[in-house]
């Protein structure tokens, strides 16, 4: 059960890390911001060079060919300037450009490590192809076809773009507060005589139970019992429990007994 497309990386400690992959839309916006910044940079550079060449003229009496040459290089080599912008930022800010920082995205290697100069260079040289025929059409098509929304440059460089969840992830304090609140709302307790064979449940089933218990306070009063019933009734049949009216209590009991078989929580 997953909402975002996720990249799952197994660390050398055999722990699975999950990264939420960036969607086509956010990446497109990030690229748009970057391209606008490049345009702005080009205009600023042109104006600056204009003043510099005037300044040179006031000293030497003639326009400098060199200043003009720099300007021509910038304009004629626009695509090189674009490649350079992305490569330098992604190398220095380990996988971010101003646009990506704004949209809270980051480029990482597909083994979870930070990217280095080579990866940044490869994925941005191939931007030339992803841009074709216009507005990143090739890039968008490959991203839609790819499981990990990668454009061509990402494939060759072995990189993915992920959502930076640093600001979204809760702080430890929030986690603890919420956890306590959760426990207090439960009415099920260990004195219950109901014995459930929770080992029969699949991971998806127990996830459904947990998700309901966490979100039930936010559900409207009419739909809450209906949702509880829709989750509880199939489970009652599966666990061969006689039908009972208090669905939420049953779900809490399933959750409690499932967690009671934990083995690793005590040192």
């Amino acid at each position, binding site marked *: 059960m997953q909402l975002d497309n996720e990249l799952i990386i197994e660390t050398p400690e055999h722990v699975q890390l999950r990264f939420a992959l960036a969607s086509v839309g956010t990446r497109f916006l990030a690229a748009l911001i970057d391209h606008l910044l490049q345009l702005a940079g080009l205009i600023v550079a042109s104006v600056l060079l204009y003043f510099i060449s005037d300044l040179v003229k006031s000293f030497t009496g003639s326009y400098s060919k060199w200043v003009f040459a720099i300007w021509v290089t910038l304009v004629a080599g626009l695509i090189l300037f674009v490649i350079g912008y992305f490569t330098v930022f992604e190398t220095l800010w380990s996988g971010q450009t101003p646009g990506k920082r704004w949209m809270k995205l980051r480029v990482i290697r597909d083994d979870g490590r930070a990217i280095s100069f080579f990866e940044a260079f490869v994925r941005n*040289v191939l931007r030339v192809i992803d841009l074709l025929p216009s507005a990143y059409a090739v890039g968008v098509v490959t991203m839609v076809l790819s499981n990990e929304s990668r454009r061509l440059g990402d494939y060759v460089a072995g990189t993915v773009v992920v959502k930076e969840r640093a600001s979204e992830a809760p702080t430890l304090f929030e986690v603890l507060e919420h956890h306590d609140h959760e426990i207090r709302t439960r009415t099920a307790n260990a004195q219950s005589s109901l014995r459930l064979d929770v080992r029969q449940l699949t991971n998806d089933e127990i996830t459904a139970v947990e998700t309901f218990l966490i979100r039930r306070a936010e559900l409207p009063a009419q739909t809450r019992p209906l949702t509880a019933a829709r989750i509880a009734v199939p489970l009652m049949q599966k666990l061969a429990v006689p039908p009972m009216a208090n669905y939420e209590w049953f779900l809490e009991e399933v959750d409690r007994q499932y967690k009671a078989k*934990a083995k690793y929580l005590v040192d």
Partner: protein
Amino acid sequence: MGRDFIDRRQSNWQRLEEMLSLAVRGQLRILHREQVREFGRLYQRTAADFAIARQEIRDTRLVNYLNNLVGRSHGAIYRSKSSGFKGFWEFYRYSGPALFRETWRYTFAAFAIFMILSLFSGFWVYQDDNFVNQFAPGMLDLVKNKKNWTDRINTDNPTMSSMIVTNNARVAVYSFATGIFAGLGALFFMALNGLHIGGITALCIKYKFWPILIFMCGHGVFELTAIFIAGGAGLLMGGAMVVPGNLTRGEALIERGIKAVKLMLICLPMLLFAGIIEGFVSPAHIAPVYKYAVSTATALILIFYFSTPDRREKPTV
């Protein structure tokens, strides 16, 4: 029970968070030796806690929190070898030439396509002048009237030079990048260049118009070699799509794509020097012998450079 577990471990997590914020700012370098060890230990403990929390506490917020914490620590600990200035020097000095020798067949293939098309074009142009109009209209009149069009570079050497560099770099980047379409783009650019250069060379020989050939020889060695290497890099990458060998197409593309980009990195300084020569030396009104000398010198430099023995301590490619 879940709460006991969290209470027992949360001081570890908080300590890891503190060290992580230090480490991210200073890239692990500002930590003392003891702190680095502690950081590693805390990371391992927290990774284990994370696995337990996901399996047994199953609180989505806690799992989310720990995933983030472990993920960021993983990023700080497992880094690729930093490619600082030394890495750059090592690359251009040793791994670059070694890589060229390893992939010379692709460069040679690009050269061969160029040669075949240029012989073809030269042959036809020699038979029939008008063939040159098919790919370079206007050139015929210039050569017939012995007009040296390259002379206009002298009106503004720095600007022309920079335009030449950017234009060549663009051709190189396109020959490389379009190689991803099974090598077809690279083939096209090599063929197009062969057609042009072969045709114009034949035309100049036919009408005994030497200044253009003398103009080309000065920068030609660097420029053409760079274009061949770029085309070869494109073919290398395209080859991964056609014959991936024991790997999947995706894996082959990554492996050879990185090599191909390294080849491109060798091209860039060559194109820069070629552009400077083409902008300042080639059009200059000096005795042709100096231009021949530049041509010979650049050829010798390339031979010496690409035969540099691989003295790296351990292979990093």
